[in-house]
């Protein structure tokens, strides 16, 4: 993330040779010679601290971060918060069905008399796991494809370009629907279906960033020094691309969660698992919208919006750090 230091104005003073700017000089210089690697690490640490400060100044991003921490905690401790038996249809026969929110049933109950809040707590797990896993997959494919398309020229690069373009144009959710229809039902299928269809956007951004890094003279200089593909990718391209990938990751988690809930809503999810999309699917199946069971629809949707919005806000905050030219936006 040392990238963001490009935004520091005023470091290009024209001065005769002398001690360089000391804006980020670490204490190590004062306390005797340190190894250059340690110096580099110190600088990165300082840069990380500075980025953290910038992040903290973004109030929306911080709010999103807090929401995310809360949701992750809830998902992690779901078994402690709500016993698994609360989800079992057969063990809730004595509970009232379609009970509106009240002191006894804080978020109301569903058509089997289950507490909605318990379903939401457990649903957070699937939503987060699918969102994160699918994003990880999408990021890995997207980064590799994007860098390959940007770095390699000729037939190979052209072929990859073609594939990226294809997936970019193809509606990803439609392909995900198809994949999850024909494959075995399960969380893994959903992850694969989303991951394999949502990487093209990332690849496009990574490719653009790779191309811009590639046109830099330092890549040319590395070639003059005798560096091969691997050295150039590892030393120059990857660090240039990673901050954007990171920001994009956070934004993609949001869309992956929406995609998961949509697939679940269409009945393509794992029916044995709770997920916010599944709850809404159940709600639609019993015509909750036209029958007045508003709590059955409202809360799961709000949960999705809150988490997706939180990821989006955090992603935008990271993006502003990774790409300082966006900061004024």
């Amino acid at each position, binding site marked *: 993330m*040392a*990238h963001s*230091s*490009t935004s*520091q*104005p*005023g*470091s*290009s*003073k*024209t*001065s*005769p*040779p002398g*001690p*360089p*700017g000391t*804006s*980020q*000089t*670490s204490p190590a*210089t004062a306390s005797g*010679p340190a*190894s*250059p690697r340690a*110096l*580099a690490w*110190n*600088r990165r640490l300082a840069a990380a601290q500075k980025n953290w400060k910038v992040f903290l100044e973004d109030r929306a991003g911080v709010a999103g971060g807090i929401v995310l921490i809360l949701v992750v905690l809830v998902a992690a401790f779901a078994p402690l918060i709500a016993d698994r038996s609360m989800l079992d249809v057969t063990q809730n026969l004595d509970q009232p069905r379609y009970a509106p929110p009240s002191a006894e049933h804080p978020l109301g109950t569903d058509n089997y008399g289950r507490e909605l809040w318990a379903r939401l707590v457990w649903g957070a797990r699937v939503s987060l796991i699918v969102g994160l896993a699918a994003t990880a997959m999408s990021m890995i494919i997207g980064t590799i494809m994007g860098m390959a398309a940007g770095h390699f020229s000729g037939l190979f690069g052209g072929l990859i370009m073609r594939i990226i373009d294809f997936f970019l144009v193809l509606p990803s959710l439609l392909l995900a629907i198809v994949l999850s229809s024909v494959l075995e039902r399960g969380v893994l299928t959903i992850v694969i279906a989303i991951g394999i269809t949502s990487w093209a956007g990332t690849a496009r951004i990574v490719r653009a960033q790779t191309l*811009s890094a590639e*046109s*830099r*003279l*330092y890549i*040319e*200089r*590395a*070639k*003059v*020094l*005798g*560096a*091969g593909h691997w*050295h150039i990718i590892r*030393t*120059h391209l990857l*660090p*240039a691309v990673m901050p954007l990938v990171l920001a994009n990751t956070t934004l993609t988690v949001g869309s992956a969660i929406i995609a998961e809930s949509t697939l679940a809503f269409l009945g393509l999810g794992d029916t044995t698992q709770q997920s916010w999309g599944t709850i809404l699917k159940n709600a639609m199946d019993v015509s909750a919208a036209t029958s007045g069971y508003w709590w059955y629809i409202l809360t799961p949707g709000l949960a999705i919006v809150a988490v997706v919005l939180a990821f989006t806000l955090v992603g935008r905050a990271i993006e502003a750090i990774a790409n300082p*030219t966006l900061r004024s936006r």
Partner: protein
Amino acid sequence: MSRTDPATASGAQPAGSRAAAEAPGTTQQKHTMQQMGTTQQKGTAQQKGTAQSTGTGDTAARQAGSDLVFDDVSILYSSRTSRGDIPAVKNVTLELPAGGTLGIAGESGSGKSTLILSALRLLPHNATLTGQVLLGGTDIAELNFGQMRAVRWSQASIIFQGALHSLNPVRPVGKQILEALELHVKDDWRTDAARSTRMHELLGHVDLGPEIAKSYPHELSGGQKQRVMIAMALACDPDIIIADEPTTALDVIVQEQILTRLRELVEARGISLLMISHDLSVLAAACDRLAIMREGEIVELGPAEQVCNDPKEEYTRQLADAFPTIGDPDSRLNPMTRNPARITTDTPHEMTDEVVLAAENLNVTFSARGRTVRAVRNVDLTLHRSEILAVVGQSGSGKTTLARALLGLQPPDRGSTLTFHGKPLPTSAKGLRAFRRDVQMILQDPSGSLNPALSTYESVAEGLRVQKFTGDERQRVRESLESTELIPGEDFFEPIPQELSGGQRQRVVIASALALDPDILIADEPVASLDASVRGEILSLILALKKNLGLTALVITHDLGLAWNIADTVAVMYRGEIVERGPVEQVLLDPQHDYTRQLLAAVPSFRSQRASMTAPEAPGTTEQTGASQQGTTERTGAAEQSATERPDASRRTGDAAQVVDPQ
């Protein structure tokens, strides 16, 4: 210091305000006395007592006949960063007399662009102006926005820096000229037909055919765009034309043509010209008076001849020295600088007879954008140990391709012979890697050549790691840095490129090349992107490296003065061919080839230009010979330029965006 009372100034009928008399539509006269006051005025009042201009010795000449007056102008950029407000212009007092020409010279960030934007109230919102700007005797702060818009372009127009971006890319250029005419309708162009005729006339004035009107900016060359910009500036018969770096990024010969044309047009119409540039010699060629600006202040002001030839300030001398006079023995093998590199040896290395690198019948052909380009043709070249050879040519002449071929980055055609120490250049990946240890390259722009995320140490050590250097890496990095006078080397391990000055960055780039202990250094425009005051330092360093270490170097440049400053031999390249080569003195003082003569004639040098001004027909003839000769030739050069130098273009804009600091 005398100061014009704003009320008097705006009330007086200025002799220079011809537009007001000619154009009834311009309303500023009626409104000048109204208090359209803004914050600027208050600022002026506060500033009055304390502020003192540095432009001393000139203000006494102030009179009502001035077209444009900056009276104690300071401009402050407020910024949200921790650095607080940034003063871009400090207490500048300048005047442009009616029909006069004034040049402002300064390096990037000296505040000169900010100053001229204030003349038409075009500053961004976060800028605060104190002091007064009088345009045709009117304080522009007193105009309301509608009046200001009426003044813009009809009274003063601007030729913006780099017409590349200053024209709307999605509108035909003719329409963009028409737009100005439609906004400021005057008697001569009341009808659409009249406007269209005038637009074509204007294009004719700048030697462009009527068909250009339908072109989009991207279809035009840099020179053509600049001509369109000039035509547009002339459109509404302004009193003043302000030219912001009008010829930067153009080739010497094109630059000379455009400057000549601009000067002719301005003189013929009695327009006042305010020109700013980083290049003192360009200004000297076009302006009678010169102001030198540094860090927001005017440090020197006077007649062009005096400022150039007898500068009072050390800083002005540095700027002037950056453009040596070819033939001046003082600057031969002696780049002028405040910080000359030290010669550490008693027996400096001199050019030897030992051939290190030789090219025979070298041809490079490549296909770019669907057609074949012969970028380098039948080139014979030898580089001796401890020789500095300058390859001089305009962009598109194939000199960069030549360098890439010599480095093994671009495969030469069959039949070409390239030998290194008598052996043919390796072609295998492994052989090339070893070869690259021996031949290193310094690329044009130090800011782009260093990865912004890597520290100096990492950048210098990169080559050592790539080449699997087995010795003490740390020590070698330190030695390399110190050989480029970054002393002590350890102090420079840590900073990343943004924390270094431009000159320091280029030293780091040179150090990283030297770290591999190469036999040959190939430098592509090593000082082209540096400020004038740093130029001498780096050239002096290259010269010292040759003397101290016996370095062999091939320097690619468009700058004949650079060859005069440091090279032993020079090769002039034109359309892929080397048209003339030999010892520097011989080629530059007694040129045999037409093209070399043409290049030498086009170099703007204030001493020679002063002479040509007394004989105004001289520039015209050079332009004609230039045009006729060029008309007969193929366009290989341009294609090569677009194919090989495109990345440079994008990088340049990227860098321009980085320069946010008006300091």
